């Protein structure tokens, strides 16, 4: 069964290319536009990897990451922050919260594909 990727971003203009990319690379995709929606989908669908934006309406990406990491059932879920927040402090914070990767926008598609592939291949 192909891995499931959850794309969490409130900007459809970035979601569409990402969704296309993931599907082209043989992954199932799910989309959430807010932190709350993401958590709901995670609890139901248990995706293998989350592409997570930080600036989200309501619960932000940092909080979503923290909740995922605090729940033992979800501890194997891979998290990639995909965000416009490029300050060193943001990156450090994201990594401390338990993200597996932190990619700042703008990124190259190949960068995302490689990062997703690498994380999905890593032993849990």
């Amino acid at each position, binding site marked *: 069964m192909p891995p499931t990727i959850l794309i969490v971003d409130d*900007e459809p*203009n*970035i979601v*569409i*290319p*990402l969704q*296309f*990319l993931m599907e*082209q690379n043989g992954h199932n995709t799910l989309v959430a536009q807010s932190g709350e929606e993401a958590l709901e989908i995670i609890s139901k669908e248990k995706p293998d990897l989350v592409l997570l934006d930080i*600036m989200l309406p309501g619960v932000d990406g940092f909080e979503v990451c923290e909740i995922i990491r605090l729940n033992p059932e979800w501890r194997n879920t891979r998290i990639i922050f995909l965000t*416009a*927040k*490029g*300050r060193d402090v943001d990156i450090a914070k994201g990594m401390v919260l338990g993200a597996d990767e932190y990619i*700042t*926008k*703008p*990124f*190259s*598609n*190949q960068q995302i594909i490689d990062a997703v592939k690498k994380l999905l291949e890593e032993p849990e």
Partner: protein
Amino acid sequence: MKNNSKIWWAFSISIGIAAVLALALVVLFWHQSIQQNRPILQEIFARYGHTILVIGLALIAWFGFMFARVFRNAIIPMNQLSEEVELIHSVNPAHRIQLEGAYGLTQLVEKINTGAEQYEKLEKSVFDRVHIAKAELEEEKNILAAIMAELPEAVLVCNKEGMIILYNSQAKRYFSEKNTTLKTGRQPDIAKDATVESQGKAHLGIGRSIFGIIGENIIRHALGEIRTKLKRNEENVTSTFVVTDRANKLLRAEAAPILNPQREFSGFIVVFNDITQGLRLEARAEFLVRSFQEKIRHSVASIKSAIEIIQVYPDIEPSRQHQLKEIIHAESRSLEQLIQRESKEAFKQTRNQWPLVPLSIPDLFDALQKKADERLGIELAVEPCTGRCWVKIDTYAMILILLFMLERVCAETGIRRYVCRYAENEDIVFLDFSWEGSPLKIEKLRQWETMQLNFMKEGMPLHLKEVLDHHNAEIWSYADQQREKKSCLRIYLPAFRPQEQDSVRHAAILPASRPEFYDFDLFHQPGQSPDLDNRLLKDLAYTVFDTETTGLNPAGGDAIVSIGALRIINTHILTEESFDQMVNPQREIPLSATKIHGISDAMVQSQPIIDVVLPAFFKYTEGTIIVAHNAAFDMRMLQTYENRTGIKFVNPVLDTLLLSAIVHSAQEDQTLSSIAGRLGVSVVDRHTAMGDAMMTAKIFIRMIPLLEKKGIRTLGEARAASEKTYYARMTF
């Protein structure tokens, strides 16, 4: 003891002494007479006893009378004479002695008065010379004070104990209580609420502690840091911290030590800058830059990802391709808007370290018109324009730019007359200089922009373009569409809306007298709280006050209607730190009282009640010795409110009535006016609390040297001597 009592005592003692002497004479004569003569003497006494007794008594009475007369006409006047001579040569050379007494004494008084005239003239001439020298020194001091006063930074200078020696106007604005820097007028100038708000807060003033203004811990921390740095011989020995003022503005404080010639710590200076606006702008600018960056990242990420998909997957279905192209288009448009709108906003917020001031265009044209005529011989005709546009510019630099351009336009066109007009379009102001002929070529303008801004030996080491950029300004030349054959040079400047006035800098006016913002003598002040009684009178801080009341019976329900007070530090009266407050006594003011002090029921109706005023006055007197004339009465008035307000004045008290009785014990009249007359203090605003407080303060200062001559130098000695005077027994 009063003079009449003294005379009666002298008279009685004289008669007593004379009677005793006469009796002693009789007894002596009796014992020394020969035995055989005694019957003869007995017979003489029997026959002439009455006559002898009457003559004896008459002699005794005459002796007593003469003695009392001498006492009244010579001895008492001599005492008074001694005091008054001392008065002339110590505090009031204009004083003249008016004594009645023996002929010789009046002659002596005349001679002394003539001598006093000479002395006064001599002293006046010395005084004039001293005065001139002092005035020169004062002027220098005043220049310093005026500069200090108008510095945009607030400055507090303290001695090593934290006592404030100097402060400037800005510090007063940041830290002083509005309602206690009161006016001396009678208008209802204090709102009740404002007074209530000030309760419990310390005052800013000379001789007061900085710890009352800024937290003690923060200052001690800063001083500790400074001392450590001094010990380590560090180059930067200052300590910086942030505090808030009364209006909760954020102030950046920088404390620096003041060292004496031996490099010992003798005080410190704290400079405060209002960073509220700066921080707000900085935070806003940072926010704008960050959000700008993040929005760009978002859009570029979407565009980049979509383009890469189109490149990598050229065969994707047309609907998907169209969707991606739409994303690219939408994000490019959003980037465009971002650059047009938000970057401009961010630019506005972040630039402009160059000091620009608001100026109206008519004023700018007015200044330019004169300079163009004077220096270039170019006539500028200003067209009347509606409205009054404002711009924010460096006036000097902008006029330089305009003269620089006009000079070159004139060289290009040969025209010496230009029509000036201005207009405003949204956020931009246009300044047009038009002439008949062709417009300037764009290359010419670009060439000028790269030239250094020099004009007739004036200028700055910057290119025209750089100075224009600092003003966010642009120049252009075009053919005027509305006016045939006319061309124009146009300057674009951002419009300024003068709603929020920048902090205004007042002109530094040299004061006629020394402003009371500083007292450098306080550098040598002993510690804040040593044994007060041992301290010299001239070194202490005083609050001199007076009350006006509804009557003279505090116990019978009379109440305060006005409190006037002043502070004395190092024998200087700090008139600018006065306390002048009317009080609503919550009862009728009798007409008899109104006739004396002029305060009527209507005048106190809108004034705060004593429960509000007394706490503020209590704060005002903190750390000072209280001085009043006939203090027993005024202190009793304050005491009547103890139960009601819970405020107890425990400061040491000095009474000028008692002090006057010490220095002028031979004088009968110890009223405020009489003492003022003796000491050469002018009587102004008598029977107003502030007027009487001022007079008392002046009197007190003049009494200090007189007390010193009597050997009374410390507070303890003054209090002890006061207690022994006749008037000290008066009660209310």
